[in-house]
């Protein structure tokens, strides 16, 4: 069966719809009370609709480049192409050399033999600093991981799993960086966004430590799976900021737009929390124009924050990739910033009236804020935000494409 673009798009659409319907059915079966019919229909239809639009835009872009080339290849060719794409830039020439030789190899088994052996070769290409340097760095990382568990566990018992996982993942990134880079030092193609994300990650870790030091019982809301997830997401943000693939840092405008949008979203989030506290006052004594402005900002900001930078970057860079870069940077900076706001605000709010940050009607243990922060800042916000941003990137690139006269493509 030949995988055409239309077929891949159709399969992707069905996968998204079926998976979401199954997920939502399970969620409804466990919901108590059930949401109103109108809300349920909206929740059933809107998210998969957005995901399908975003996925089709990504596939359309991908198919216009590497996708169409790969669809014409056999499996050994695709395997080797993917492996070459994962090589560091300075070694990619060798990967392309192996790909070119594969084109000369005849016969199914000979092609598999050549491709598999070449993929093996790529794993063992000599690292930049040599094997001894890499082994030394790996040794330091292993020692750090071994020390992190007991050290952090003694100070903040609830963070032991997080500490081990985060140290391990960051250490793995360091080892990878040493193996890939010509000189083992991080590239910082976009310093301001990098500093913003790195500070956000540091602040996220700091607020988690403070939260669990003040409320040790909240550790029950950070089970091992959640701790691993938190560590993986924060380490991923750090990776994008410090050692991202080259394609993420090619557009300075996109990364700066993304970082600025994340700051705006964090400000909106803070404003939304504090505006929610004003509700009982009924905005008494405030002018109508301020109330209208606040309402407009609160409703439109989250959509605009994700959509607009990606659209603008896609349009300015005249490519879907530029928009996608803005999308990734927005989400990458937004995650740690909102998380770092959530926990201290949750503590503050709970101290006032014993209610949670996100659902002011519920009196619940303060530790539940930790679970809410994980679900929203590391789950719902990024998933929906990235979807909107990808749609923005796609539409921005399409608008540009139409605006260019005599464009041969």
């Amino acid at each position: 069966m030949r995988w055409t673009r239309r077929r891949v798009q159709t399969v992707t659409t069905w996968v998204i719809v079926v998976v979401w319907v199954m997920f939502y059915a399970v969620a409804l079966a466990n919901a108590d009370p059930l949401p109103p019919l109108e809300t349920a229909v909206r929740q059933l239809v809107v998210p998969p609709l957005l995901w399908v639009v975003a996925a089709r835009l990504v596939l359309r872009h991908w198919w216009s480049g590497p996708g169409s080339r790969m669809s014409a290849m056999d499996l050994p060719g695709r395997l080797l192409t993917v492996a070459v794409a994962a090589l560091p830039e300075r070694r990619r020439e060798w990967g392309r050399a192996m790909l070119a030789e594969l084109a000369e190899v005849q016969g199914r088994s000979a092609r598999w033999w050549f491709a598999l052996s070449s993929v093996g070769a790529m794993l063992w290409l000599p690292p930049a600093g040599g094997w001894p340097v890499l082994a030394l760095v790996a040794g330091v990382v292993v020692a750090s991981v071994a020390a992190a568990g007991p050290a952090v566990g003694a100070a903040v018992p609830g963070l032991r799993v997080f500490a081990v996982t985060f140290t391990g993942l960051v250490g793995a990134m360091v080892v990878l960086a040493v193996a890939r880079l010509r000189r083992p030092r991080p590239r910082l193609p976009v310093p301001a966004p990098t500093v913003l994300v790195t500070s956000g990650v540091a602040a996220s870790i700091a607020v988690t430590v403070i939260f669990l030091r003040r409320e040790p019982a909240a550790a029950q809301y950070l089970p091992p799976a959640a701790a691993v997830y938190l560590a993986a997401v924060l380490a991923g943000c750090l990776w994008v900021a410090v050692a991202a693939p080259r394609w993420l840092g090619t557009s300075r405008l996109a990364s700066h737009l993304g970082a600025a949008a994340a700051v705006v979203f964090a400000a909106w989030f803070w404003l939304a929390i504090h505006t929610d506290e004003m509700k009982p006052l009924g905005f008494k004594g405030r002018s109508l124009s301020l109330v209208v402005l606040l309402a407009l900002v609160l409703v439109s900001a989250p959509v605009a924050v994700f959509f607009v930078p990606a659209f603008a970057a896609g349009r300015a860079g005249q490519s879907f990739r530029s928009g996608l870069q803005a999308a990734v940077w927005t989400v990458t900076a937004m995650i740690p910033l909102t998380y770092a706001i959530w926990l201290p605000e949750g503590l503050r709010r709970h101290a006032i009236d014993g209610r949670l940050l996100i659902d002011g009607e519920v009196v619940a243990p303060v530790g539940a804020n930790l679970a809410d922060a994980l679900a929203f800042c590391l789950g719902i916000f990024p998933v929906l935000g990235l979807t909107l941003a990808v749609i923005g990137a796609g539409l921005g690139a399409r608008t540009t494409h139409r605006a260019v006269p005599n464009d041969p493509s």
Partner: protein
Amino acid sequence: MTRSRRPSAQTTAVVLALAEKPTAWRYGYELCQQLGLKPGSLYPILVRLADRGLLETTWDTDVPAGRPPRHLYRLTGSGRALATELAAATAATATRRSGPKGSPNERWQGA
């Protein structure tokens, strides 16, 4: 400090194969077939030789339509000097092996 170490048998074979026609450019797959080496063994050797300035590379753009340009390899001046040394060392080892058994020290050489 530069560490000097005797090349492996496979590296020696690759260098000597390239030295057979020192001015000719060779393809990777062609070397694999000639030496009976897997690409997983050959390419890391070629990378090391190139990193050490013993091998020069170029792209062959004169390929049939629809085919990607192929990578070509040949020894540099330093590479040819190494090939000469290795050929001499290989010949000396072969002479020792074919002659009467020497002292234990001699038998251990090159192991």
